[in-house]
């Protein structure tokens, strides 16, 4: 049972690392590996030493045969003890690194030295606990020996306490419900791993290789062999861990995708080039359609000229149509051009309010007599580094999207909420609509260039691609959540300017 869990933990963490190669999956992978090293070492040690009941034995090893083969596994006590020591000292380190990585507390996040200093205690412990070194320096020096033991014990406790605090504080501080939910699932998994670690961390690993040495102080006796908990409790903890691991890993994949990076770069390029090929044909097709329409108009106009009497009114009607078509094409070309040239943004300090106001003025200009209610809530008007033109265009696009989503829905009356607020490192521009919403499949595609679910002559599918490019140019990101039939929320996250 226990063995199966360890194997599961290893495979799952390796798989997550393969799927997502970033810092947090690496830290989590390192945590799983450290824990697995420590527990494997202890399991081997228990198999070799005995002293457990048959019931616990079956729980640990499944059956006597497995136990016996582990028992006869060839390893010196030095190696075994150091294996446990490695797991014991690396787990809290990676736990803390992960906590710091997730933490949005500016002082911690941007503290270069802190991230270096926390490596020191684990390295010292790992050096001191190297069996030969440990024996040499603690021989006939019991005071020094117990100092080392307490030193290691103390920093471990501090690391774990600080990490737990940081995780909880972070969970408490996330104000976007959507992210908080996923974050809580992740930390539940991290806590369940920590719980497992805490079951055995108390025992000093030097005991494994110093066991028979008369000079070694026995703290906790043979804690490893004492089955502290009953088998059902063990089973419960392990099952809890498995469930938390599955949910946690899944959330981690989503969370990292949503909050920290959009996706793997290579994958994006590949998908985009596919989208561009398809988009180009859609684009050309659209232009062709419009030009064909124009040809029909020209033919009609020619017919008017062929007539003896010149119907001026009719002619005026056709030229108006042509002018409108021309404007349309120009607009689309313009928006395509905008989307493509977004690598030229000029970031200067601007008031977010002026940007919002500009976006609103575009919006009101376009939908001057709309029945859709626009609700605006500006909690603050910070200064941020932005390209006013592009950013207001992006926000305007978000509003237009929201408008379209409501217009597409059956109920003509809807509400768009524009909410601006700050979340520690970011300013958030949140646009919520009560429109049609999206399916998961649609959510995956909407940011691709030329993607459009409206399939009309007025939409070229460049909107969200453009917004996201602008967000990225501002070192921010675009996030969204949506439910089919209930509406969507888009978050434009822009970093704070100091």
């Amino acid at each position: 049972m226990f063995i199966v869990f360890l194997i599961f933990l290893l495979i799952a963490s390796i798989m997550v690392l393969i799927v997502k190669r970033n810092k947090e999956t690496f830290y989590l992978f390192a945590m799983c590996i450290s824990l697995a090293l420590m527990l494997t070492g202890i399991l081997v040690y228990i198999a070799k030493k005995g002293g457990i009941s048959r019931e616990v034995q079956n729980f640990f090893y499944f059956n006597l045969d497995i136990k016996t083969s582990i028992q006869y596994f060839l390893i010196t006590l030095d190696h075994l003890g150091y294996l446990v020591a490695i797991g014991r000292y690396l787990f809290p380190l990676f736990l803390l690194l992960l906590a710091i990585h997730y933490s949005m507390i500016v002082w911690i996040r941007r503290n270069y030295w802190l991230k270096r200093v926390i490596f020191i205690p684990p390295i010292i412990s790992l050096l001191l606990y190297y069996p030969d070194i440990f024996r040499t320096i603690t021989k006939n020096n019991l005071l020094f020996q117990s100092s080392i033991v307490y030193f290691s014990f103390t920093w471990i406790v501090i690391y774990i306490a600080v990490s737990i605090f940081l995780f909880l504080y972070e969970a408490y501080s996330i104000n976007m419900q959507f992210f908080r939910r996923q974050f809580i699932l992740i930390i539940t998994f991290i806590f369940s791993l920590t719980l497992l670690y805490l079951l055995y961390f108390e025992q000093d690993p030097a005991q494994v290789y110093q066991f028979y040495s008369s000079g070694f102080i026995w703290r906790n006796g043979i804690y490893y062999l004492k089955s502290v908990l009953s088998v059902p409790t063990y089973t419960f903890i392990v099952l809890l861990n498995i469930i938390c691991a599955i949910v946690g890993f899944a959330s981690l994949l989503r969370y990292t995708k949503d909050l920290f990076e959009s996706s793997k770069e290579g994958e994006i390029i590949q998908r985009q080039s596919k989208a561009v090929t398809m988009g180009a044909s859609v684009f050309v097709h659209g232009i062709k359609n419009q030009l064909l329409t124009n040809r029909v108009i020209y033919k009609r106009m020619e017919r008017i000229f062929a007539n003896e009497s010149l119907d001026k009114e009719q002619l005026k009607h056709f030229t108006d149509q042509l002018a409108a078509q021309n404007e349309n094409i120009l607009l689309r070309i313009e928006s395509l051009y905008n989307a493509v040239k977004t690598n030229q943004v000029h970031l200067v300090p601007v008031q977010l309010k002026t940007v919002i106001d500009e976006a609103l003025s575009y919006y009101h200009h376009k939908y001057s007599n709309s029945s859709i209610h626009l609700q605006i809530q500006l909690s603050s008007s910070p200064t941020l580094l932005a390209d006013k033109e592009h950013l207001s265009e992006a926000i305007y696009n978000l509003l237009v999207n929201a408008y379209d989503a409501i217009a597409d829905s059956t109920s003509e009356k809807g509400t768009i909420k524009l909410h601006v607020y700050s979340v520690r490192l970011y300013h958030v521009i949140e646009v919520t609509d009560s429109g049609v919403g999206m399916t998961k499949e649609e959510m995956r595609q909407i940011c691709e260039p030329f993607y459009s679910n409206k399939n009309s002559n007025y939409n070229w599918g460049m909107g969200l691609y453009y917004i996201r490019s602008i967000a990225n140019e501002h070192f921010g990101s675009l996030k969204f959540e949506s439910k089919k039939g209930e509406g969507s929320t888009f978050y434009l996250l822009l970093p704070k300017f100091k």
Partner: protein
Amino acid sequence: MKKSISLLMVLFVILLLVACSNDENNDKSEVDSTEEAASNEELTKMKVAYMPNYASMNAVVAGINTGAFEEQGIEVELVEFADGPTIIAAMESGSIDVGYIGPGAHVLAIQGSADIFAFAHLGNADEVIGNKENGVREISDLKGKTIAVASGTSSETILNMTLNEAGLTEEDVKLMDMDASAIVTAMISGSVDAAATWSPNTTAIKEEMGDNAIMLSNNVRYADQFPSIASWVVNPKYAEENHDLLVKFTKGLYGGMDYRVENLDEVAKWSAEVAGLDAESVKKETGDGDWITSDDLVEMIENGDIDIFYEVQQENFMTEERLTEDELVPVSDYVLFDIMKEAAE
């Protein structure tokens, strides 16, 4: 929606597990309490540590199977360990009441970690075995070789005496500190040139290696210098608090000792059953010790032989540098003769 359903599912499963485990706990505690209630009237439960070999098990298993412990109102629960020092550590942590140790672990008793409440026997279970293929045919070949040893146990003791005989010290060889089981694997796989260990590991090695394994020395070889004593030990604090119980346990043990002397093979079969071992290989271990009856023991106490055994053992530990001169103590400090005598009455 989907997510909230899956969340609910997870919660449900967790709740179910909690409920189940609670149930099991409750069931168990009910059983436990009923058992306890019964045993409070009749039997006192004692957790007894043993090692999976004949020498360690014969007396206690015979005592259980002949009902000698039950007669004393004791229910014995056996817990398996790999070596003596671990058993002493287990007693310190309170998970074990009494246990059996081989010669090597006696150093811990002398240092005050355990009290000896019954002498078990003089053993002949320890051997140093060489690997012929790796060039070890006699004791002097050990120089510069890699030797597997479980330090702190009788394995280290027999190795030291063997090295001593050839004029070598631990510095002249390369020691690999391992647990008792790993020594077997190391020896069979040829990772080490020689190994010092005890029965049944010695038997396992010789069976697997056949002619390639050669016994370099055993306890009998050094019987006059180093009595290979095995004893029953208890934590000093436990001994103080449970004097009467210990006397009763020793009485049960005497019953087992007396029975096994006449029924070596039958007891071997019982022991094999308890430890999940092959009965035939356990039978081969019936020569591992000098089995005595309780009458023999009383005689040995009265004529002072036991006292001398333990004294010689202390001196040997000092020669081996496992004890300093300051650590030497009178034998009566850690051997509870009164219990042995009282139990014989």
